[in-house]
Every structure is written in structure tokens, then in C-alpha cells.
């Protein structure tokens, strides 16, 4: 973007909004918005505390396990639904229901089922992420050109080879897109789960800071989470870019 002939760097809008925040913060309008500089210095202090580091380890562990399950179950289920009419009829309704369901409302039920510990968080991450991964994998498999499958059949490929060498590769762009959105939803899941359980990881910290009106740390923690979610999505997006030519050439 250019303004009055000057090229404006990509992150410029972020800096502008940070400045606006800083000014509003110094005006002391409302205690909820401390100056950005105070938040940043609180953030630097925060990441050095043992409580933050422990919370981060717990959070990452729940997130990674939940996401691994979501991808490990979601992708095969989506591929199965894309290939088999029967599987699609059996699971289709449920997947579509859950993908738009207000899952936060389910977390208290999960707490009863899985206790007030990490298991509940893992299940929450899984439930937040898995449905979109299933739907995208299914969509990717369904739009594999029939002629590519016929081609492989005509050269004598058995169904397992067709799945491995044609279907999975042809559906890869959609599978990756599903995983990217799943990761973002998973971050939401881990935070919402922890806040509702309120005694683990970042949820405990959020609870602590908001109860004691420690807004600097509250915002610092939020920014750390935003940055992590954007970083994750950015990494997958890079992988998607590398195979972008697929979609156009199919």
C-alpha cells in the first residue's frame, strides 16, 4: 500500500493501533485499558515468572495432544466420508451439527465426565478442532477429479494405491486448509477450556489477573496467545503456499 507516494510497510496499521491504544491508556479513561507500554513491560516480566512458564508448558501439552488426536482422527474420518457414501450418511449429520454447535456450553459436561484436569482440556481442544478438519478433508476428497482416479485404475492401481498416490495428494490443499482452521479453533478450545476449568494453565492465570484487576498482565497474556495463534496459522499457510499450484491445475 502507498500513501502520498510513500510505501507503507505491512505491519504499519498494527503500530498505528498500538499508538492509539497508548494514548487512550494515558488518558486514564477506563482502568480496563492500561497504556500499551505498560502492557509490554508487564509482558516482559510475565514471561520470566515460573507461574507463566508452568502454565505455558501445561497449555502447550494439552494443545498438542488435542490437536494430534483431532488431526489423527479427523483426516482419516473425512477421507472415509469423502470416499464412502455409507460413512458419509452415518457421520455427516453429526459432523455438521458439531461444527456449528456452541461447544463452550459442552465444557461443563466434559468436566463432569473427565474431571477438572488436563483430560478435559485435551478433549475440549479436540472437539473444537476436529469437525472442520473432517469437513475439509471430506470436501477435498470429493472434488478429486474422477478422471484422475479412472486414470490410476486404467493403469492397474488397486484401491489402496489409488488412495495413497492419488486421493490423498489431490486432496492435500483442502486437508491443509482444514488443519489450519482447526489449529486456530484449537487455540480457542484450549483457552476456553482452561478458563472454564479455571484451575489449570492460562485459565488459572486469566482468572487470577481478572479477579485482581491486573489488566497489564491480563492483556499481555492475551497478546501472547494472539501471537501464538497467528504464528501457527502462518506456518501452515506457508505449507499451503508451497502446494498452491495444485488447486489451479486440477
Amino acid at each position, binding site marked *: 500500500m502507498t500513501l502520498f507516494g510513500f510505501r507503507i510497510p505491512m505491519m504499519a496499521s498494527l503500530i498505528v493501533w498500538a499508538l492509539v491504544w497508548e494514548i487512550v491508556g494515558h488518558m486514564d479513561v477506563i482502568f480496563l485499558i492500561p497504556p500499551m507500554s505498560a502492557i509490554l513491560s508487564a509482558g516482559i516480566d510475565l514471561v520470566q515468572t515460573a507461574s507463566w512458564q508452568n502454565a505455558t508448558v501445561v497449555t502447550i501439552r494439552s494443545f498438542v495432544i488435542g490437536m494430534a488426536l483431532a488431526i489423527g482422527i479427523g483426516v482419516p474420518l473425512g477421507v472415509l466420508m469423502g470416499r464412502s457414501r455409507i460413512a458419509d450418511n452415518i457421520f455427516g449429520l453429526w459432523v455438521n451439527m458439531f461444527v456449528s454447535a456452541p461447544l463452550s456450553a459442552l465444557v461443563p459436561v466434559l468436566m463432569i465426565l473427565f474431571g477438572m484436569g488436563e483430560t478435559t482440556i485435551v478433549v475440549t481442544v479436540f472437539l473444537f478442532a476436529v469437525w472442520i478438519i473432517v469437513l475439509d478433508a471430506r470436501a477435498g476428497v470429493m472434488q478429486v*477429479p474422477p*478422471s*484422475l482416479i*479412472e*486414470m*490410476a*485404475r*486404467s*493403469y*492397474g*492401481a488397486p484401491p489402496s*494405491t489409488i488412495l495413497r498416490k*492419488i486421493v490423498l*495428494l*489431490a486432496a*492435500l490443499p483442502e486437508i491443509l486448509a482444514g488443519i489450519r482452521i482447526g489449529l486456530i479453533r484449537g487455540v480457542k478450545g484450549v483457552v476456553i477450556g482452561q478458563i472454564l476449568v479455571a484451575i489449570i494453565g492460562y485459565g488459572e492465570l486469566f482468572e487470577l489477573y481478572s479477579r485482581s484487576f491486573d489488566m497489564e498482565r491480563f492483556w499481555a497474556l492475551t497478546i501472547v496467545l494472539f501471537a501464538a495463534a497467528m504464528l501457527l496459522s502462518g506456518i501452515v499457510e506457508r505449507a499451503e503456499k508451497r*502446494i498452491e*499450484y*495444485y488447486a*489451479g*491445475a*486440477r
Partner: protein
Amino acid sequence: MSALAEEFDPASIVTHDPVVRVEGICKHYGSVEALRSIDLQFERGKLTTLLGPSGCGKTTLLKIIAGLVPATSGRIMVNGRAVTGPGPERAFVFQDFALMPWATVLRNVAFGLELKGTPAAERNRVARHHIEQVGLQGFEDKYPHELSGGMRQRVGIARAFAVNADVLLLDEPFSAVDEQNRRKFQEDLLRLVEIENKTFIFVTHSIEEAVYVSDRIVLLSPRPGRVSQVIEPKIDRAADPDDIRRDAGYLDVVEEIWQGLRHYAE
């Protein structure tokens, strides 16, 4: 025998070496009858075209011969053996090329051999030879999206030749290729028919294309698809391509087929 054409009579067709025999093939899609008792024979070294208006089942018949679509009744014999599925003695060229966008030209051409389990070095050697045959040398490491439509279909043809099948099944291979390239393709196809000594079964909806490339044209009539006429264009292929397209005999056959098909057109 008439210089141009003769009425269809299965018994009168002299086949010296019928590589493919289509015997009483019928195909129903639910209550729709797509093909009704098709009997045909295809000889080695000859190119036969299945020609007809849309809905006559020509592509369905080709896919039944390929073993990609099951017939409702009747059977397909290849080299004297009844076949029910795809086999290594038949290779298919697709209308939309059916190239793997994630694979290079070399890997696409070698894909049939890869599925057969041919070692990499051997299949790449064979693939390079056929890439050269279709005039794509230097493009081995390119991806399909980097090629023009005409070049992509050359890849499809090279892939079919690389498996060294006896029977080449071509489903409207040039319909997605622009006009200049199509003419060049037709000439190249004639050259390949001449040097490869294989059985070619070709589907097209273009009368001119059919007359130009075919040793024999099977006219199918629609709903249900039946063989309505078999025509053998007697065209001197040694002549210059441009002269052939102006030749009176060529134009007469085109006209005759058009008269046979025109009542199917709206």
C-alpha cells in the same frame, strides 16, 4: 467395395487380426438404455473412430472396452481373452488429460510403469524416450500447470505409450486443444499409427477429425446407442496434409457422414 462407404454388415467385415472384439455389449443406466447389442472388431495397426452425436454412448463404449465401466451384458475379448476390468494390454488417453498436478512430466509419463512396479531407473529411461517421441524433450522436470493444453495432452499420450499396451483408447483427446495444435496432433497421431503397429480406438465428435485420421469410422446413433453405419474412408495418407483436407474424396466422406447425422442435430 464402394470407394467411399458401405452399409454395415458384421459378417462382411474381414478382420485379419482382431485384437479387440466387442460382443453383444449392452449398457443400461437404471431404466435408461445407453448401448444396445454392439458387435465390433478392431484390428492391429488400424485406427477406428467411434463417431456420433452426443448421447450416443461412444465414450461409454470406450470405457467399457477399457474395463473402467462394467457392461450390463455382452463381453469384451482382448487378444482372445475375455476381460472384465482394466488390463496392461490397454492404455487410455483422457479428454481432460488426467495428469497429476503434483508430479513432473517425467513422473506423470512413468506413472503407468510405476504402478506396474518397474524400477525407477528403467521406467525413467522408457519415459524419457516417449517424452522425446511426442516432442517434449527439455520439459521432463516441468509440472503440468507450466505447460499449455496441447503439451499436457502430449504428456497424456506419452504416458499411454510408455506402458507399451497393444490397444490405445483415446477419448476425445484433442477436444480441449486449440485448433492449430489439433491439426498438428492429428498428423502426429497418423505418424504414430504408422510406426507403432498398435490398435487405436478413437472417440471424437468432429466429423473432419474422424475422416482425416481413421482407417474405419463406426457411426453410432443415439438413444439407445447402436451401430448405424461403418465407413472406410479411402484416403491417400501419403499426400500432403493440406492437400488431403482439400481432396474431393475426403470432402465427400465428410459430407456423407454429415448427411447421416444431420437429422440428429436440432
